[in-house]
C-alpha cells in the first residue's frame, strides 16, 4: 500500500485505518498531561522513536518494516504513564522514511500510539509505579513491565495483522508469509522491549543520555539483521546461477531445476510444512539433478535403447548429486531428498529400491514435481503436454510411482494457483549445447533398456 496504490484501498481498509487513528486521537486528547519536565521527556523519547522509525529495516518491500520502536514507547510507559507513552508513539508520524504512503503513515502512527497507550495502562494496572525508577523499585517493576511489553507486542501485531488481511493481495505467498514471520517478530520485539526498561532505569543516573547509550547495541543488532537479508539474497542468487550453469548443457532441460523447486515448494506449502523445511526443499529442488553432470553426454544423447551399463550410469546420478552437495551445511532432509528422488512407491525405483514410507518425505515430494515438469516441457521426441494431461498422468501413476497424498496436494495447488509451463526452447545451431534424446524424469516415456537376456 504505497502512495499510488492507496486509491485501490478497499472501503473496509479505509474504515479500519480511520478507526484506529480516531481511537488513538480520542484517547490521547483526553489527557492527563504533566508539567514542563514531563513534556521535555516526551520530546526526548519521541526524538528517539523518530530516529528508530527513520532507520527501520524493510522486511518485505512495500508492506512490512521493522524497527525497535517498542523500546522507546515502553520506556515512556514507565517514565511518563499511558498518555505520555501514547504521545511518544504518535511521534511515528515524524519518521523520515520515504517509503510509506500517507495512509500507511497514518495507520502506523495510530497503531503505535494505541499500543503504547495500552501498554502504559497494563503497566499501571499491574501495580507499576509511573516515574523514574530508583534502587527500591527493582525487582518489583519487572513483572508489570513484562506484562506491558506483552500487551504492546500483542496490540501491535493484532492491529498489523488486521490491516495486512484487509489490504494484501489474496495470493498464496501474501497470505502465509506474515503469519510465519510474525512469531519471530514478536520474539524480537519482546527482546528489544527489555531495552525500554533499561532506558527507564538509566534515566535516574544518566538522564537524557540514557537513550544514547542504548542506541549502540540496537544499531548493531539492526546492522546484523540487514546483513542477514543481504547474505540470504546473495546466496539464493548464486545457487540459482550455478544450477543454471549445470543445466545449460542440455537445451531442453533449461529452467528445469527452478521449476521443480517451485513445484516442490507448492506441494510443501499445501501440506503445511514448516517454513524452515519449505526453505530446505526449495534448495533440494534446485540441486536435485546436479549429479546428472556425471552422466556422460553420449549416454544422454543416445536415441536407441540403452545398454545395462548406460542405464546404470543414469541410475547413479542421484548418488553423484549427493556427493556434490554432501558438504553443504543445510538440512539433512534435503540431502536425503536429492539422493532418493527417483525411488518409487512400489519399490522399483533407484538407487536403493526403497518402497512406500521408507522413502524420505522430501524425495516423494521432489519426485512428483520432477515428473510433472518433465511432462509439461518440450522434449526432442515429443512436444510439451498440456497441464491437464500431465495431471491425469500423475494420477495414473499415483500409488505405484508417486505418493498419492502429494499428487493430490500438487493438483490442488495447481488448480488454485496455476502452473507456468516453460516456452518451447528455440533451437539454435550451436556447439555449446547438447540435446538429450531421452528423459529419465519422464514417467510416460520410460528409458528403454536392452534386455540382457
Amino acid at each position: 500500500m504505497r502512495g499510488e496504490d492507496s486509491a485501490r484501498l478497499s472501503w473496509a481498509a479505509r474504515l479500519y485505518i480511520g478507526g484506529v487513528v480516531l481511537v488513538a486521537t480520542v484517547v490521547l486528547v483526553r489527557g492527563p498531561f504533566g508539567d514542563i519536565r514531563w513534556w521535555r521527556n516526551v520530546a526526548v523519547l519521541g526524538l528517539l522513536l523518530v530516529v528508530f522509525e527513520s532507520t527501520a529495516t524493510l522486511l518485505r518491500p512495500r508492506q512490512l518494516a521493522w524497527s525497535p520502536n517498542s523500546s522507546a514507547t515502553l520506556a515512556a510507559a514507565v517514565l511518563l504513564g499511558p498518555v505520555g507513552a501514547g504521545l511518544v508513539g504518535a511521534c511515528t508520524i515524524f519518521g523520515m522514511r520515504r517509503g510509506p504512503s500517507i495512509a500507511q503513515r497514518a495507520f502506523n502512527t495510530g497503531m503505535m500510539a494505541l499500543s503504547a497507550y495500552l501498554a502504559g495502562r497494563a503497566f499501571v494496572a499491574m501495580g507499576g509505579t509511573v516515574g523514574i525508577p530508583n534502587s527500591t523499585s527493582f525487582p518489583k517493576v519487572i513483572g508489570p513491565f513484562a506484562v506491558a511489553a506483552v500487551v504492546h507486542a500483542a496490540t501491535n501485531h493484532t492491529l498489523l495483522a488486521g490491516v495486512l488481511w484487509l489490504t494484501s493481495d489474496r495470493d498464496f505467498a501474501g497470505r502465509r508469509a506474515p503469519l510465519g514471520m510474525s512469531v519471530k517478530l514478536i520474539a524480537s520485539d519482546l527482546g528489544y522491549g527489555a531495552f525500554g526498561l533499561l532506558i527507564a532505569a538509566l534515566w535516574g543516573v544518566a538522564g537524557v543520555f540514557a537513550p544514547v547509550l542504548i542506541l549502540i547495541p540496537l544499531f548493531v543488532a539492526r546492522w546484523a539483521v540487514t546483513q542477514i537479508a543481504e547474505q540470504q539474497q546473495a546466496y539464493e542468487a548464486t545457487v540459482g546461477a550455478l544450477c543454471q550453469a549445470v543445466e545449460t548443457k542440455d537445451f531442453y532441460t533449461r529452467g528445469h531445476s527452478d521449476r521443480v523447486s517451485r513445484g516442490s515448494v507448492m506441494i510443501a506449502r499445501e501440506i503445511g510444512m514448516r517454513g524452515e523445511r519449505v526453505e530446505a526443499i526449495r534448495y533440494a529442488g534446485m540441486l536435485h539433478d546436479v549429479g546428472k553432470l556425471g552422466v556422460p553426454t553420449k549416454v544422454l544423447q543416445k536415441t536407441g535403447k540403452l545398454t545395462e551399463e548406460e542405464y546404470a550410469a543414469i541410475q547413479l546420478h542421484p548418488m553423484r548429486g549427493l556427493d556434490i552437495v554432501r558438504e553443504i551445511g543445510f538440512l539433512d532432509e534435503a540431502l536425503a531428498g536429492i539422493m532418493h528422488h527417483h525411488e518409487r512407491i512400489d519399490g522399483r525405483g533407484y538407487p536403493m529400491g526403497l518402497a512406500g514410507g521408507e522413502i524420505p518425505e522430501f524425495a516423494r515430494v521432489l519426485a512428483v514435481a520432477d515428473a510433472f515438469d518433465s511432462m509439461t516441457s518440450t522434449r526432442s521426441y515429443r512436444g510439451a503436454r498440456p497441464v491437464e494431461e500431465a495431471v491425469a498422468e500423475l494420477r495414473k501413476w499415483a500409488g505405484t510411482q508417486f505418493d498419492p497424498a502429494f499428487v493430490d496436494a500438487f493438483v490442488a495447488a495447481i488448480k488454485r494457483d496455476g502452473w507456468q509451463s516453460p516456452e518451447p526452447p528455440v533451437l539454435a545451431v550451436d556447439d555449446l549445447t547438447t540435446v538429450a534424446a531421452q528423459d529419465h524424469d519422464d514417467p510416460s516415456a520410460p528409458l528403454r533398456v536392452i534386455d540382457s537376456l
Partner: protein
Amino acid sequence: MTQRRHELRRFPWQVRDSGLLLLVVAAGVVLFASVAQTAVQGLRDPRIAVAFGVLIAFGEVLRLNLPGDRETAPIGMAGALAYALLIRVGDHSVQYTAEQVVTVTAIGMIVGALPHLAVGRPAKIGGMSIRLLCVACVAFIFRPLAGNSAVAYHWGLAFSVMTALAVLALLLEAVLTALLRVDEQRARFRVALVDEMRVQLPLGAAVGASGLLIAFAAEVMGLAALAVFTAPLLVTQVAFRRYAGIRATYLQTVRALAKVTEIGGYVEPGHSERVSRLAIAVGRELGIHEPQLLELEYAALMHDIGQLSLADPIPGGATVLVSRQDQQRIAELGADVIQQAQVLGSVAEIVRRQNEPYRGVEVAHEGYRGRPGRLDRWDGEPSRPPLSSRIIKAANAFDDLVGSSLDPGRAAAAVQQLRLDTASEYDPEAVEALSRVVNRRSVIQL
C-alpha cells in the same frame, strides 16, 4: 634434510604456535597470581561475584563463531567488563579487587567451557586467554579508581573513564587476536589487525556498550540489571549467529558446486579446491585483506565453471594446455555464469580476466560470440588484470603442471617454468609469493 626433519619433529612449537604458547603462559601467570591473592584475602561481595560468574559462564557456553573462524563470547565479555567496571550495586559501594575480577572471570570461563569439552568441541584456549588478559587489563586500571570519590560520584568522569577502558579492552583483544592469526596463517600483522577490527567492530561496540550499561544499571536495578540486559544482547547474538551461518553455508555451497566440473570429468579431481587453497595462501602472502580474499576464494573455486558450457571436456582438464582463444572463451563463459548471480560482480571480473598476461592485453582481443572485444588500453598503457586474476593465473598453471603430486622436485620445476614466463605472462610478484608458499609447504610435508 634429515637433520632438519629431526629438528622439526622435536620442537614443533618452534615452528608454529609459539605466540599461542606465550599468550597462554601470560594468562596463566596473571591468573595464578590473582587466585593466590584472592585466596589470601577472601572473597568480597560474594553474592555479586556469583551472579557475574554465572553470567560469564553462560556467555561462554553461548560462544559465537564469526566469519573467518573467529570465536567470540559477546555475553561473557560484556559481563566480565561490567564486573570490572562496577562501582555500586544499589546503594552499596562494591569493595572487591582487580585480582578477584580476574579470578571470578576465569572461573566463569572455565565452567562455561566445560559443556563444550563434554560434547567434544575444542576448548579454544587461545581465545579464552585473550579475553582474560583484556579483562585483567581493565580491572587492574579501574579497580583502584573505583574507590576514588571523584570517579564514584561524578557521572561524567566515570562515564569517560569507563568508555576509554572498554575501548582499550576491545582494541587489545583485536591486537592479540591479530597476533595469533599472524602466527597461525602467516598473514601480515597490519593486514590481520585491520581485518580483525573490521570484523569485530560492530559486535565489539555492542559488547562495550552493554558492559557499560550493566555497570550503570546495577546502581539502580541491583543485580536484576544482569537479567534485563542479557535479553537484548541475546537477540543481537542470535542475529549474528544466523548471519555467520548463512555466510558459512554460502561458502560451502560454492565449494560443493565448484566440484561439478570434477564430477563431469572436466577437470582433475580436487583441482578447484587445490587452486583455491594455493591462491588464498599466495593472496595472504601478498597482504590481501579478508573481504578481497573471500572474493579470491570464490573466483578460484569457480575459475573453471565455464568449462561446463563446453560440449566435450578438455583432455585432462588442464587449461594451461589449450589455446589462448579457448582459454579466453572458457573464462568468458564462466564469468557470464557468475554474472548471472548479480551479487558477485567483482568475482565475475576476476574470472573473466584470469588468463590475461599480467602486463595487460596490448590490443583488443577478438570478441567472443559477436561480443565486441574490450579495448584494454588506458592512456596508452594496457590495463592490467586485477591482482586476484593474476594470482589465479599463476596458481592454476602451477596446479595444472603439478596436480595432486607432493613431489618437491616437480613443484620446484613447475615454479621454475612459471618464472621463465614472468616477462609477459605471469606476474613476477605472484610467482615469487607462490614459490615461497610452495617451499614452506614442502618443508612442512617432509
